[in-house]
């Protein structure tokens, strides 16, 4: 398990605007076609039904302690192959600027692209329904056990791991910037500026996204037009 190379999704046939069904769909899952990506590589797999969307999003949500994003990357990119890393970053970028939690927005967008409203609702129900029952049960139990030192310690340990998971997800997704039209140096500068403003200076998110985000999008617009 020490493979640090491209994910299976990224080994898919590259640079084709429309996916070829026979090549791209993984075996017995033809109904929904993998998503093409503007950056070339295509996803190797696609959800077969709204039910499968529900099952996969339910599973990843129940495994997502202290945030669902790292586990969503693991399942959607590495296990299911429904998205390439670049597509994952793309959906996350859109989910980020829309109101609502980015992972929930990702689930809605992925579901909608494959099965319309039914897919969006299946993915949404998957990510929310069972985890909500779990959280409410825990809320009822918490009042009774929050004083036990081992419970408090376990929560601290899980908190440390969830911080590490988010950092590792950023490290894993960073190579997707190599093909970005902004160029590597500008990408690195923008990412570091956002990190400094939010992580170190605690400036309000809205202004960073509006300010640095629109500057970055403006520069990309100019680069793409040349």
């Amino acid at each position, binding site marked *: 398990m020490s493979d640090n190379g491209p994910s299976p999704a990224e080994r898919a046939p590259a640079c084709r605007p429309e996916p070829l069904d026979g090549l791209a769909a993984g075996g017995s899952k033809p109904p929904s076609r993998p998503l093409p990506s503007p950056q070339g590589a295509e996803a190797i797999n696609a959800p077969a039904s709204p039910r499968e969307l529900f099952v996969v999003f339910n599973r990843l949500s129940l495994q997502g302690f202290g945030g669902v994003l790292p586990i969503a990357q693991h399942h959607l990119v590495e296990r299911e192959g429904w998205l390439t890393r670049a597509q994952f970053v793309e959906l996350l970028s859109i989910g980020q600027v829309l109101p609502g939690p980015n992972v929930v927005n990702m689930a809605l967008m992925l579901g909608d692209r494959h099965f319309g409203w039914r897919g969006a609702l299946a993915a949404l129900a998957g990510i929310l329904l069972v985890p909500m029952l779990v959280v409410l049960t825990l809320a009822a139990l918490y009042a009774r056990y929050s004083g036990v030192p081992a419970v408090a310690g376990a929560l601290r340990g899980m908190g440390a*791991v969830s911080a590490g998971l988010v950092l590792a997800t950023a490290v894993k997704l960073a190579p997707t910037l190599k093909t970005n039209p902004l160029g590597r140096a500008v990408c690195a500068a923008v990412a570091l500026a956002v990190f400094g403003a939010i*992580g170190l200076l605690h400036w309000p998110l809205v202004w960073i996204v509006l300010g640095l985000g629109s500057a970055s999008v403006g520069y990309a617009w100019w680069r793409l037009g040349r």
Partner: protein
Amino acid sequence: MSHAILGWHDLFGLFAQFLVLSLLAVGGAIATAPDMHRYVVVEHGWLSDAQFTSSVAIAQAAPGPNLLFVAVIGWNVAGFAGVTATMLGILIPSTTLAIAATRWGSQRRESRFVRAFTSGMAPVTLGLLLATGYVLTEPSRTSLGAMGLVVVTVLVIARTRLSPMWLVALGALVGALGWT
């Protein structure tokens, strides 16, 4: 747990409040927590400060999106009726908007604007991920054991495809033994 008894009028007010907050929740529902606090604790007194804080903490520790703290707040305010009011309120506007936006965008995915938007936002997204991870390490920075867990997690996850579940279990074990 005892819930305040809310009439239809109060429940509708709660629903309407979360409906508005949904559209302001850029960067996740947690960004609107201060305003939820103002509404349910300060203005209406439905929850105490401690109840509000533990509602958020439980949802952070539990599996699932952090958004579920909204369900815990609804539950603590008014049981199932409260959950229904807060969750439907926070979900309906942002859900509708996300689907409308993705349909608009995928019809124009090769257009210069959509390509400029997704490629321009990609480094911002990665910078935000780094910042979020860094902020989350805050409670761990005073403990050698906890920082060790952060470093091990980053190395293992960045270099392998091991499921994050194993590291969460490791973290719970190390923490329960009192090493954090």
